[in-house]
């Protein structure tokens, strides 16, 4: 088993869990961990000492440097591509070509599964330490309501009229995480088993075992009825916007459908700049290239390389506008 474990680690076949629990940010990415990722795409990267993907930047910003922090979900974190193809790198290269005397640092603090409340917590707990010129919230309609899906993540909550960030101190859950991590952080085999068990929760076991002999009912092609509650104003979200520094915070809708009207109104009242990736992505889609389709694996998922290129150019364009205003 030990020999197999070595083979799995060094061949990159098996991955270990990329998560760790920290007292300041809760469940975060493991410091200095190199990862190889296969899903709809193949990606290679490394979490730096500040626990986000990319090279380490010093807390202190150097002169003539524009520092931008990206907050968002898995579309921003982007495990499925090489970091050199990430839209932030494309934007940085484009901007540095344009402004020869300026340096641009775009820090990718995206995390899979993050919603607006998680992003706000990350802004306060981690992003602001880097003294950025701009903080970009890259989100979609689904991210506007706090879900509090991970008990080990810090929670942005309203206490009276003010926003507070609470880190769950439920020791039982932390102990349980620490017990499990002993196995899944160190054994690729056990981590594979863990992933397999997770898969059986989404796909019925008889279907995995019997294949074609147990056909799954195909999803009906009915439009997904959006609950009106999805678009309802949320008090925490409202408070987050009210707490935004309008000079520093920028909102980008990463999806083609627009954000709800109430959200744009709140941003406008507060004077927060907001932009859309959707128009660029839609143009790409209309030209016959699906930014979410991965030909090699025949899967639909996060942005592919072309998607990143388009988004990267759009981001450079947005930053350019902000600098010039």
């Amino acid at each position: 088993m030990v020999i197999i474990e070595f083979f799995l680690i060094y061949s990159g076949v098996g991955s270990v869990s990329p998560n760790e629990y920290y007292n300041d940010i809760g469940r975060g990415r493991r410091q200095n961990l190199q990862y190889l990722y296969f899903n709809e795409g193949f990606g290679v990267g490394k979490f730096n000492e500040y626990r986000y993907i990319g090279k380490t930047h010093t807390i202190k910003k150097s002169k003539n440097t524009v520092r931008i922090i990206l907050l968002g979900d898995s579309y921003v974190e982007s495990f499925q591509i090489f970091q050199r193809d990430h839209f932030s790198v494309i934007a940085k290269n484009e901007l540095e070509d344009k402004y020869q005397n300026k340096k641009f640092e775009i820090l990718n603090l995206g995390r899979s599964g993050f919603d607006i409340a998680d992003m706000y917590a990350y802004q306060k707990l981690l992003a602001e330490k880097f003294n950025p010129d701009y903080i970009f919230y890259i989100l979609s309609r689904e991210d506007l309501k706090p879900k509090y899906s991970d008990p080990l993540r810090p929670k942005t909550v309203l206490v009276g009229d003010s926003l507070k960030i609470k880190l769950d101190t439920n020791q039982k859950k932390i102990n349980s995480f620490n017990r499990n991590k002993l196995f899944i952080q160190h054994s690729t085999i056990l981590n594979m088993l863990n992933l397999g068990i997770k898969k059986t929760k989404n796909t019925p076991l008889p279907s995995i075992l019997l294949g074609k002999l147990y056909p799954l009912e195909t999803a009906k092609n009915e439009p997904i009825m959006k609950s009106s509650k999805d678009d309802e104003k949320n008090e925490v979200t409202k408070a987050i916007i009210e707490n935004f520094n309008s000079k520093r915070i920028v909102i980008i809708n990463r999806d083609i459908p627009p954000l709800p009207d109430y959200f744009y109104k709140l941003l406008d009242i507060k004077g927060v700049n907001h932009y859309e990736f959707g128009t660029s992505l839609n143009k790409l889609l209309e030209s016959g290239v699906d930014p979410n389709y991965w030909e090699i694996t025949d899967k639909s998922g996060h942005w592919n390389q072309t998607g990143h290129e388009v988004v990267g150019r759009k981001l450079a364009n947005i930053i350019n506008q902000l600098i010039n205003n």
Partner: protein
Amino acid sequence: MLFNSFIFFIFLGAILPIFYFLPNKQSKNIFLVISSYFFYGYWDWRFCGLLAISTVIDFYIGRKIYETKNTKKRKLFLIISLVSNLGILAFFKYFNFFVDSFVTISENIGWNVDFLHLNILLPVGISFYTFQTLSYTIDVFKKKLEPTKNFIDFALFVSFFPQLVAGPIERAKALLPQLSKKLTPSIEQIKAGITLIVLGLFRKVMIGDTAGRYVDSIFGDLNTYMSIELIVGLVLFSIQIYADFSGYSHMARGTAKLLGVELMKNFEQPYFSRNITEFWRRWHISLSSWLKDYLYISLGGNRNGKFLMYRNLMITMLLGGLWHGASWNFVIWGGLHGVYLTIHKFFSKNKIPHSNRIKKLTVVIFINILTTYILVLFTWLFFRSTSWETTELFFSKIINWESSEHSSLFISIACTYLLAIITLDIFEYVTGKHSFILLIKSSGIRYGILSALFLVSLIYMLQAESLPFIYFQF
């Protein structure tokens, strides 16, 4: 049904007790024919008809050739067999290839032709069972084999599920006599069978499939990768195709053993070859020996002087390439091997050693092994590339070298895979057995290793998607 799927193990678990329980030869063989058709029909039941057609034609033609004394009639029957078998193969596998090639050539010389392009589904394993049945009628024609009178035995010879879809391409001389007796596996066969299945599954799933994830990503979008990453991609493909196909062959042999049948070895550590001739004695042995016996020798072999020998060699390798797939890249791949073999034969005169054993590993032998591997590696590029543009892009990215920030990571991945496959091959080479684990004296260690390999493979299969065997498409 893929060997690397849970359904295969359920299928095997269901048929083995029934097979062991059946009392006589005829009932066992009928049951195996039904099981084999179920196995084959799991992909697409419509192709079972093709299998049945080939079986009926060759069974009756075999009898007719044997019973007829008239040489002309015997030839006629052989031609009917060749035309019908190769006709089916040509239609399903090569129709669009020849039509498209003709259209392209016509357009290049200014003719405007618009031929029909059919959407033809390629029946799995058609090249394998076609060659297997052809060897039967040719051997009967050459009076090397007496045809069977038992239709069920013959139907089982054609459809025997362990080797139906990707070989080894068995000769009737070797397989039919086994099927004409009551199949009763010995304890030794069962032990070796289980061992081969586990080792084959590990090779296929943990080495072949996992290497394939890198290869598919890299070759699927060459533009996004740097030079060293492309080279690693090619090295990994050389490992993927070997682990994939040898894994399948191990599993085929292991499964056959559980049914009391011995199949030929298809691989003998091919990357340990000291020259290209030796490589073809170690790689896909059942195909290379088939091509030698039924094509190269039929063309005249080395009987009519050197020039004709080189010509025969080139024709054999070009057709061998085309056998792999209806695409020019396979023809180039076969052609390159033909050139290598011709050059090697030209320079080595008659000094090619017949033994595959290396008595002592010297620096010269090591350099020879490395050179042979690099030459073979180069040909794999054409095999893996789906188009000439891909090959061109690969070369251009190597010539215009781009460095990668992940060089050491990619090199260490390639080295790990090489080490894994070389280690397995060294054990096979030293012991002379594919089921080398059985030589471990302590049964605890023996079964511990086998259980670990099997368990890890199953865990991987649970969380990842199964990749079909590369050779299924041929």
